[in-house]
């Protein structure tokens, strides 16, 4: 099981859209051009999202920016941004996870049954040949 090094992930994102979340509630979506060890980044075609009180969102669009890496919290490859992101309540999410697990368990059971059946068949054939 190979480790995916963090800076390798950022390196793969160069020339594609990324979504950066800063230490305050601000978020920045743009095309990553360059980055360095401190995660200072050059982004192009940028939209900045800043949530204000009462649930509003302030949006600014900029051509090219140098984003300071000191206040970065999270980087998500792929520029979905907070507007297009999929939001659920925790209940729905937990239910989804349950369904997935149940599916997996079913599939594993079926696999095991198949294997058992095929080995049974083989042993039956061998017995018939011997007789």
């Amino acid at each position: 099981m190979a480790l995916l090094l963090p800076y390798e992930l950022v390196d793969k994102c160069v020339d594609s859209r990324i979504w950066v979340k800063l230490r305050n509630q601000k978020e920045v979506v743009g095309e990553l051009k360059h980055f360095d060890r401190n995660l200072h980044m050059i982004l192009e075609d940028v939209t900045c999202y800043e949530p204000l009180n009462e649930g509003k969102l302030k949006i600014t669009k900029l051509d090219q920016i140098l984003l300071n890496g000191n206040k970065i919290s999270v980087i998500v490859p792929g520029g979905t941004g907070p507007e297009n992101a999929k939001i659920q309540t925790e209940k729905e999410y937990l239910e989804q996870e349950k369904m997935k697990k149940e599916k997996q368990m079913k599939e594993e059971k079926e696999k095991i049954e198949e294997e058992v059946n095929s080995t049974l068949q083989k042993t039956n054939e061998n017995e018939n040949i011997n007789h």
Partner: protein
Amino acid sequence: MSNFFKPVFDLEDYFDKKVHIRFLEGREVSGVLKGYDSNSNCVLDQAIEYLTDANGNLLQPPQIMFLGLMFCKGSSITSIFPEEGSTIIENK
């Protein structure tokens, strides 16, 4: 002197496990730990974020935003703990 170059903790124990990460300004995120380095930068897979309001308090009832593959900067991380073995208890 020989302890100087050893890391304080090793994220190897959490590799490929579902992990919950808390950040400095109240952000909370959880996902499967797929990579890390000595600065504690992390790569999480199938990650979700627990949303906060404009002041940084977690929303009640909890809202979840699905993020997928993500990178967490080590300098912003407050704590990392594994999801298995942790439960939510009521405030009393």
